[in-house]
């Protein structure tokens, strides 16, 4: 899963190089959201279940 985030960043860099601003901005925001989700997933999976 983690490789996909790096791959999207590479895709964004290619898009930037070919001057597609809107698409790269949208993909960038999506990727940031994915990063936050991965971080939250990492926090929640390491919380011991007590119930």
């Amino acid at each position, binding site marked *: 899963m983690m490789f996909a985030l790096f791959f999207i960043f590479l895709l964004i860099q290619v898009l930037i190089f070919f001057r597609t601003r809107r698409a790269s901005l949208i993909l960038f925001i999506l990727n*940031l959201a994915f990063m936050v989700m991965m971080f939250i997933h990492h926090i929640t999976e390491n919380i011991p279940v007590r119930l």
Partner: protein
Amino acid sequence: MKDFIRVSNALLILVLMGVISSAFYEEFTREGPPCPLCFLQRLGMIGIATAILMNLRFGIRIKHYVLALFSAGIGGAVSTRQILLHICPNFPTFGYPVLGLGLYTWAFIVFCCSAISIGVFLFLYQPDQAMKVRMSWLDYLAFLATALVTLGNIILTIYQCHFGSCKDVPWPPKNPPTSLSVPAYNLLFPFV
């Protein structure tokens, strides 16, 4: 002034890529495996670099700086979590210290410095910087460095985590591998 800001942007990207490259060097020479949080920190640095690349290509805009600040914030939060995990008593450190500090602590310092430098760029922002200009060789170098480092991370992530999610690896490992599997381990820990 506009040229100075563009050159500073390109230099910030090159510094960030240098930091990730040095983490690569640490990983390959000292056999410290990256963890999921380390990968997220690298993603944060690549995020800052990619947002600044937009400045170099489309002209300098506040939106691009805001995206870079978001990336720095996420990366800073991730490295803070890792620092907090490893300062707990009876919790082992991860990897080897560099100049006395863990790599995650260095990552936190890098995110703070990046956020401060982006703040300075925002302070110096003027609307005439938003005009597109031809990219210089330094800008192309920044593009190339970012793309190569991102590609390297894709290959490394697929190699280490395959196509699933990355697992936490305890380090140093409880059951040290044999000399056949990881020869450098015995060089690093000859008496273990």
